[in-house]
């Protein structure tokens, strides 16, 4: 009797296993389950500065680009020069990955070098001084002889930034032609001295998520209105 009883238990267990397995497999066949992950990462911005003297692109290997200081060296007195100010063109391309706002700041340092000649007509140690400009009005970057493209119409603020007056939609390419040439500085050469003028030109591009301009840039809520 004990032998028969233990066999019945075994049969019951086996039957239960079979029952569960059959149900599970049958169910699994008629149900499809798909699982996927979506990974979200904060949006960034892709910005390129395109700078040319005529058709020659200014790259980091250009003789007119100072890698260490990240400035372009522009000749502002000799129109035959390869890097003459009249040949300069600067554009900015941006593809924001989130809705953004942008501001730029042009940092142009105008250096006038005056070299005196001694009594033998030989040059002495040059004297270098910075030159400042008054605002030239429409068509010129403020306080500079660099000219802006007619399509470039930012809001020039007192903090010396030029604020692009539009919201940049995500995943859209925007191009701003910022600088199109410029006027030379009127240098002088006479019996006593010779002058040259060079511009060291840097550019700050600042892009932020569009709704953060008050917190990050300290602007009034109505600034863009």
């Amino acid at each position, binding site marked *: 009797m004990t032998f028969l009883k233990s066999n019945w238990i075994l049969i019951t267990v086996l039957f239960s296993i079979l029952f569960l397995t059959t149900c599970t497999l049958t169910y699994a066949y*008629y*149900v*499809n389950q*798909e699982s996927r992950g*979506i990974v*979200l990462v*904060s949006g960034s911005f892709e910005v390129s500065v395109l700078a040319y003297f005529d058709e020659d692109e200014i790259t980091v290997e250009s003789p007119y680009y100072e890698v260490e200081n990240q400035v372009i060296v522009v000749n502002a007195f000799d129109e035959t020069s390869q890097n003459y100010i009249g040949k300069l063109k600067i554009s900015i391309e941006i593809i924001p990955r989130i809705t953004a706002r942008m501001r730029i700041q042009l940092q142009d340092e105008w250096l006038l070098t005056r070299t005196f000649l001694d009594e033998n007509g030989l040059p002495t140690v040059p004297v270098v001084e910075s030159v400042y400009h008054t605002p030239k009005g429409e068509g010129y970057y403020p306080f500079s002889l660099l000219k802006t493209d007619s399509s470039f119409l930012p809001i020039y603020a007192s903090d010396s930034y030029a604020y692009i007056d539009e919201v940049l939609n995500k995943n859209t390419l925007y191009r701003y032609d910022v600088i199109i040439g410029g006027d030379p500085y009127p240098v002088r050469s006479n019996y006593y001295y010779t002058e040259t003028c060079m511009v060291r030109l840097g550019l700050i591009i600042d892009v932020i*998520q*569009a*709704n953060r301009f008050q917190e990050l840039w300290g602007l009034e809520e109505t600034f863009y209105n």
Partner: protein
Amino acid sequence: MVNPMKKYIIVILSVLLLTGSLFSISFAWFTYIKRKSVATFVSNEILVDLEVNDAIFIDDYVLSDLAFVDFQNDFIEDQYGLIDSLASSIIINIELSNSSPLSRHFIQIQELSTEGLLLLIMYEGLDLTSEHVFESSYHALLMTILSEYATKQEMIDALELYNSSVLEGLSTILVYPGSVMTIQIAVWGDYDGLIEKDGYLSDTYRLDLTIESINARGVS
């Protein structure tokens, strides 16, 4: 006295018969029956293809346009009118293969990160045409969901309830073989909801999506 071997044979045969019946009963339960003059059973496997933002959705999908917003000023008041454009939009197409039976999709979206993401789930429709305009007035929709609530927690709860009801509604829709169901998830980062604000811009946030497709006749 009955021979014990006979007993075992009877028991084994009974077990086999029962197992066979179980399979048939389950089979019938999960199988779509076409109503024809002569009943036939169709028992194809359910197959689903997934697409996310027009890309095949096989592995994890990385979306690099998450923007963090201020809950009150942006999400609720839309102070600068930018909340719609700041959303990360995820369009998911769930295509039931032609060989699958009539089915229903049970969708679950689980936020695996512990910190705040704000989700708005929308049903776009079945078998959309190229003329379909996807929902993009998120703020207007949010206002219909949240306007009667005062505190942030109440609003978060109301939004979760709304999302759950959308997903629940999807599970009642019968999907025919070859049909494509489309849903949209709009996501924002909740800056105020971040527990750890340092380095939040370089962190990654994960949503886990599970789609269980079941024979429409197999569930009540």
